[in-house]
């Protein structure tokens, strides 16, 4: 597929609320190429979720233009162009793990559901839990089910909103590595929202630093780590340099607020 996966130009979104307008996004410029791993990082309320939702056509921009795979977000959604992992698992309580993963396959009428379910549950390390209900799983396991569900229909574009936000450091490191090898193996394009500088620098080919009030992009950092990177790179000077630049960006964004 030729052309960029996402282009946003002068994208703004204002929520009209009872106590005045909220400028959730202001003049956002963004380009994402196929196969990139892009992280959105920034303090709470800076519009990361909102930007992801605009890409997913769950929210409509107030002004500016955005294309997804060269189409409008609405067309892209209709074409089932992306899989979305929400900030919370959002599993269906009356469905078992395997039935939750099967949900998109049922809705889209995808064939070979059984093998897809098995493959993706294996990917998130949940084989053996097929018949369990969500309440029988830990929060981290539930979130992994929701990742398997997003991957089940094999979308080329993966939108992930703080998927590991609720997990402990060790599980998080492990899932980060798994996500990275998945990305490497499948050549998917991933857009990933996070609060963690470490996570952003480790995973990304491109880090988008955002700042609140109004929500905007204040820095875009390209990293040059190899695709098959391991957790060791976190000790390298190059890694620390990038992390430092992200931190500086976040700090600059904050001072604007005071």
């Amino acid at each position, binding site marked *: 597929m030729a052309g960029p996966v996402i282009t946003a130009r002068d994208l703004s979104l204002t929520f009209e609320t009872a106590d005045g307008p909220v400028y959730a996004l202001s003049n956002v410029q963004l380009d994402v190429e196929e196969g990139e791993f892009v992280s959105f990082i920034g303090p709470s309320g800076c519009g990361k979720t909102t930007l992801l939702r605009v890409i997913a056509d769950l929210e409509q921009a107030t002004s500016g233009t955005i294309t997804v795979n060269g189409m409008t977000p609405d067309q892209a959604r209709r074409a089932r162009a992306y899989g979305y992992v929400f900030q919370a698992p959002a599993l*269906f309580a*009356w469905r078992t793990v395997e039935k939750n993963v099967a949900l998109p396959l049922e809705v889209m009428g995808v064939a070979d559901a059984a093998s897809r379910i098995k493959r993706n549950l294996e990917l998130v390390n949940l084989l053996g839990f097929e018949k369990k209900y969500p309440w029988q799983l830990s929060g981290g396991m539930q979130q992994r089910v929701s990742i398997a569900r997003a991957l089940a229909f094999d979308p080329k574009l993966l939108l992930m909103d703080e998927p590991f936000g609720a997990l402990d450091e060790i599980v998080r490191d492990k899932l980060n590595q798994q996500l990275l090898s998945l990305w490497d193996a499948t050549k998917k394009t991933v857009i990933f929202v996070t609060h963690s500088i470490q996570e952003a620098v480790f995973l990304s080919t491109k880090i988008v630093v955002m700042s609140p009030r109004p929500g905007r992009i204040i820095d875009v950092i390209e990293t040059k780590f190899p695709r098959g990177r391991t957790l060791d790179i976190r000790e390298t000077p190059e890694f620390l340099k990038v992390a430092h630049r992200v931190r500086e960006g976040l700090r600059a964004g904050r001072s604007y607020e005071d």
Partner: protein
Amino acid sequence: MKTEARGSFVPVAAISLIILVIWYAMTVPMNAVVADSKIAAAGGGLANTIEVSWSLARPVLPAPHQVAIEFWNTVFGVAPWKVKSLVYHAWVTLSSTLLGFVLGTLLGIVLAVAIVHVRSLQKSLLPWIIASQTVPILAIAPMVIVVLGSVGLTGLLPKSLISMYLCFFPVTIGMVKGLNSPEPMQLDLMRTYHASAWDVLRKLRLPASVPFLFASLKVAIAIALVGAIVGELPTGAIAGIGARLLNGSYYGQTIQIWAALFAAAFMAATLVWFVGVADRVTARLMGARP
């Protein structure tokens, strides 16, 4: 479960005993009008007062054991297909209750689905639905029965329609709430799949509304029974618990009335219990946390 049942046995038994004692005591003053002359004729005294008050053929307030005996005789002492059998009358009322309950539940669900999907209906339809329930059922039941009777519809269906009229309401209200109960995130998820409204309904909204449905059904089944009994009153029906009540009041058969009332109460309790069991079984099948 077992300890729970044993734990509630003592208080329930105690309350029942207190009610029985008060009931027996009340029969004396309540029946004084009819009993006084007979007590005097028998020579007065406490023993005679009690004996006469508790064994009148047409008491104002029958004694509990009189009701129990009447109940026993008409339930177990008569073949269930005979007009004298309380089982026969209970069955007549039960069949129209169940038909009305099924029709009312279906109507209630259909209305709720329509209201949730067509935004304008929420404003236009809901006030009418609420207004429909403010009309006293005793006022419209005779009209319904008479109007339907004039077009040749008699028997089970008109009575069921009154049950339906009463019991669709809690189902609609409960189901509107239930169908709107999925989290916004779950609805967004279905949107990212570009799921049809039909898929959203059957895979998300309906399963999510099941607990709300059962809460409504417990109310609906009880008022469906009330509707069926009320539906039996205006036509001077010859069968059903309602007919039994009406008949008893015509001829001053208070014991018969009380027996019929107990039959109705027993039926209501049984029906609500059945809905409760169905609720628990469904919840289990849907993987709810025990």
